[in-house]
């Protein structure tokens, strides 16, 4: 198992390199010119040339890329051309917000999706099943931004149950930083009022982000469970007198979540890209909104750095998924 994990982590490097080449090429081909933007609106042609020289943007693209790679290999992600702050610092500050949002969404997706899917399969063709199917279709059909705005409208503006935006009230001091995840830090420091506020703030963005994936997980769990319920080992346990609810949990459930776990791994990718939209709408201070700003300002160091970070996270999640798989299904060991 350990060897397997090491091998997977080593295979990460070529993936990241490929990712960088691709992103770099796309940025290079994009019509926007960072030097023009940096020089400001009223800059003369000479000014722009000077900026270009200062940032090394006049060199051939492969030299630029080589220099960048050299930097990255020693852990230096460069300086934001826009804010002049080290990119690594910005990311370290913003990443926990995104990770917190993604983790809460992932948990909602897993628990909500697996529960819904299981109920749909156990009470096949009953009203509960129809609700499950409706949610599945809705999850595929509803656009993230529309759901976000609707939730804001109903639950924040009309009902006032949750705040419209932000991660914590502006006047509030964030909990002492331990992990950077407010929910966890506030509990660890026994700061319960901060915890309550953090929960209230994360609820709507997390639901928005989780909804599509939740529907997918529910659909996969439901169909996998329906299939597993026809398996011989179910009728065998039934025949020996094991009660139905015990057959479902844990026996059939464990077989059925294998596909759901695969889906969760794949969905984590769309979760990060979904975070870009959700963070913009809910003003969530994570790397999604950071990335969008960087794209608007052609801040290519930031774009590349975020690409690396997201790529690494995605690959790590997939390693974790494989490990969980092997834990659930002994035949894979």
């Amino acid at each position, binding site marked *: 198992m350990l060897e397997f994990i090491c091998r997977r982590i080593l295979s990460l490097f070529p993936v990241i390199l490929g990712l960088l080449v691709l992103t770099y090429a796309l940025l290079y081909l994009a019509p926007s010119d960072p030097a023009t933007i940096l020089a400001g609106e009223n800059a003369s042609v000479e000014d722009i040339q000077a900026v270009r020289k200062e940032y090394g943007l006049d060199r051939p693209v492969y030299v630029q890329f080589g220099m960048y790679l050299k930097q990255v290999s020693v852990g230096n992600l460069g300086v934001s051309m826009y804010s002049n702050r080290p990119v690594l610092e910005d990311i370290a500050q913003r990443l926990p917000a995104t990770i917190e949002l993604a983790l809460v969404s992932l948990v909602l997706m897993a628990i909500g999706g697996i529960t819904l899917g299981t109920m749909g399969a156990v009470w096949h063709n009953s009203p509960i099943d129809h609700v499950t199917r409706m949610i599945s279709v809705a999850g595929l059909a509803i656009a993230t931004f529309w759901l976000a705005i609707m939730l804001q409208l109903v639950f924040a503006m009309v009902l006032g149950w949750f705040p419209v935006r932000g991660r914590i009230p502006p006047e509030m001091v964030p909990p002492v930083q331990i992990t950077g995840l407010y929910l966890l830090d506030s509990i660890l420091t026994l700061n319960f009022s901060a915890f309550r506020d953090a929960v209230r703030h994360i609820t709507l963005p997390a639901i928005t982000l989780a909804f599509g994936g939740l529907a997918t997980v529910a659909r996969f769990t439901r169909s996998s469970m329906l299939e597993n319920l026809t398996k*011989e080992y179910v009728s065998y*346990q039934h025949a*020996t007198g*094991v009660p139905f609810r015990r057959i479902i949990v844990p*026996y059939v459930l464990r077989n059925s979540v294998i596909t759901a776990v695969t889906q969760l791994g794949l969905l984590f990718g769309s979760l990060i890209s979904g975070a870009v939209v959700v963070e913009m709408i809910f003003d969530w201070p994570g790397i999604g909104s950071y990335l969008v700003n960087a794209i608007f300002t052609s801040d290519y160091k930031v774009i590349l750095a975020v690409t690396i970070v997201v790529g690494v996270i995605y690959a790590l999640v997939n390693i974790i998924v494989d490990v969980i798989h092997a834990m659930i*299904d002994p035949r894979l060991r």
Partner: protein
Amino acid sequence: MKDTLPLLSVRNLQLVIPTDEGTAKILDRVTFEVAEGEVVGLVGESGCGKSTLIKAILGILPNQAEIVSGEIKFGGLDLLGSATRRTWHAAKDIGFIPQDPFTALNPVFKVGVQMMEILRWSGLPGEPPGYIGGNTRQRHREHLIKMLKAVQIPDPEDAFERYPHQFSGGQRQRILIASALSSRPKLIVADEPTTALDVTTQREILILLRELIEDDKTSMLLVTHDFGVVAQMCDSVSVMYAGQTMENGTAKDIIHTPIHPYTKRLLACHPELSDEIVGIPGTVPSPIFAPPGCRFGPRCTSCRPACSEQRPPLMKPVGGQRDVACVLLDQGVRV
């Protein structure tokens, strides 16, 4: 067959399942008994309703199945009274061995965990089913490891912690046998327990099974379509065709002096038990379009016009030890 009250008795069981094409009359007045300590073979071609009958006994019929008439009694307890779910009492006293050891075990759970689950809901003698408080788990574990030893699984402690795919088919069937016997049931129901295995393993498993149930005087209902297995294992036989009981009797009588034409034809398919080897022309009719009267009629060489009008009732020949449902037997006592 015997004077004492039978352990299991199935009388005139009629079962239908509605389908899109029409009502499938799967069981038509099935009747037989299993006495205490007796091994009864249930014989019949594929598709004649043996597994459905087993499901009725175990109380796991599909929801659409409907019992039209008849009864199943187990030790005086009415098994059909509790709808489709078997009562705790019956679960405890009826052990089940499935047909296919390759698919009966859940692939993602340890063998020990699955055996513990089954024993939990049957309980050892004197224990309430479902109870796992106190040191029950420990006791069950020790008992099951002893059972694994009894069915000759090497290194049973270790086997307990392994997964199904780490055992061969024969070993898995041994595990399932250990599981079925673990709660010391009065009756073992086995649905073709060796058809999925190769011939040598088949023989070994049957010998083992026979030894184990003889020790405890456990009764067994053994489903098979193989008269060789009957000869090796059974005291009595019930022959079924297309959901109808054709002939019941002791294994010796049925094999050596069959009366019903279907039994004769079935025996004729076995070279080691018969001089002439012939198959039976035709196939088992679908239970949806079953012929009226005796369902074997269309394939029977002794068929008379009366056979297709009304099914001959099960009769005991005068002074005989068996039941036969055939017009050839015109003298006898109605069962």
